[in-house]
């Protein structure tokens, strides 16, 4: 018995919607395999997030999608009581956090499997994958 997933799914697109590009497709293909990949700039040898068509550090186009460990720390978090989108109302309060990955990039996600007010800054976390629909898998984090 499955219930329909009613919350917002990722809507890929350029920063200003100029290109409904799918250059982020490798990210979502990886989450479906329950793997986390992050863009890495081969020129300056560093990871960055969110995905871009060129490196925001050195403006290089020599990029790759590189697997990362999925391990990181809660860099900062907020516990959402009043979501922007009412489709999250039934989940509130929940943790919305900036996760600092061990490899260096920072990613936005939820911290789950812990009472929201027990989350702390710098807490070690690890990626988990939620197959929310047959097409989409979200990456979330739980205490490591």
């Amino acid at each position, binding site marked *: 018995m499955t219930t329909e997933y009613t919350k917002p799914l990722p809507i890929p*697109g350029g920063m200003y919607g100029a290109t409904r590009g799918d250059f982020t497709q490798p990210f979502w293909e990886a989450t479906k395999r329950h793997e986390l990949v992050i863009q890495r700039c081969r020129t300056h040898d560093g990871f960055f997030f969110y995905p871009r068509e060129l490196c925001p550090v050195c403006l290089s186009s020599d990029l790759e999608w590189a697997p990362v460990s999925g391990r990181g720390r809660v860099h900062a978090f907020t516990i959402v009581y*009043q979501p*922007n989108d009412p489709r999250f109302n039934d989940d509130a309060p929940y943790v*919305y956090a900036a996760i600092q990955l061990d490899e260096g990039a920072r990613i*936005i996600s939820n911290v789950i499997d812990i009472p929201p007010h027990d989350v702390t800054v710098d807490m070690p976390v690890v990626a988990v994958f939620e197959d929310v629909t047959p097409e989409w898998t979200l990456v979330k984090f739980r205490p490591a």
Partner: protein
Amino acid sequence: MTMRGAAAIVGFAEMPTRRTYEGRTAMGLMAEASRDAMADARIRKEEIDGLIVEGGDFYPAAIGEYMGLNPNFVTGVSTMGASGATATSVAAMAIHSGLANNVLVTLSAPRETGMPWGSPPSPGMRTEFENPYGPAVAANTGYGLMYSRHMHEYGTTQEQLANIAVNQRYNALENENAVFRGQPLTVEDVLNSRYINYPIRLLESVMPCAGGAAIILTSADRADSFPNRPVYLLGAGIACDPLTGWARERLTRSVVTRSAPIALQMAGYGPSDIQFAQFYDCYTILHAVCLEDAGLVPKGEIGPFFAATDTTYKGSFPINTDGGQLSCGQPGDAGGFRHVVEATRQIMGRAGVRQVERNDLCMVNG
């Protein structure tokens, strides 16, 4: 040569902040505030040869047209909450560079507006990598992250920052333009208000409102011929960093670390010379961080500062003497403009019951 002292504000007008101006338009409010500011400066419409407005939502030429202005220099600035302070700086630049003599700056919002933050019709990074995780309402999310990180790095407490809202409310009690006039607030009230998103509580957040304001700037050589005490712009600094809060390298630092030193160096003053401050206050935490980053309070010590310092208009270091956005309400991007307007009012000596004693040098942040 910098634009230090090249231009002065010689007139202003402010529409009282309300939940809504029923049946009114943004342009109508801007026109009314502009008319009243011109009357305040005793300047004729035909003498206005520069116009600056908020440019993200409005075409400047359309606003000029609405009120029958035919300016020479015209532009819009779109730096969100900083638009009012930015526009004031750009007005001084235009005057200093000879592009205009008398510049009108006006911003408004006719009804309460929530920020359409990453709303579904606008594909982009937010709709792909933030919205599936449920950000909080309005602009709260990034400031919630900033708040939790500041608490972690510096031991800042919610009780300490509650004083920001409380002191500003005291300042607003007799401000006829403030939505929350006559409604006192205690630290307990703030700490008992519901969370929007931890650590941000309802009474640490601005309320979306309607309102608007206008100011008139002129060149230094003409400033003394107007009836009001001229308010000279002695220094300005403008800086920008990632719009996406979590993408900033240090979540607990704002761009004021870069803009304030530029302004202070131009003015030839240090932070300790500043007599009172009007600082952006969409949320207590951003207000706190900006005061630190301007050098008015040592980094990380904003919590103890607010626990120990009377920042009301009667206090040792008055801040947001009109109640700020937290007590007056936030009419969209015009919200931050109130800090320019109140600084002007205080320096002109027209703040009435809340007039500060030392009113010669104010630092404004947008």
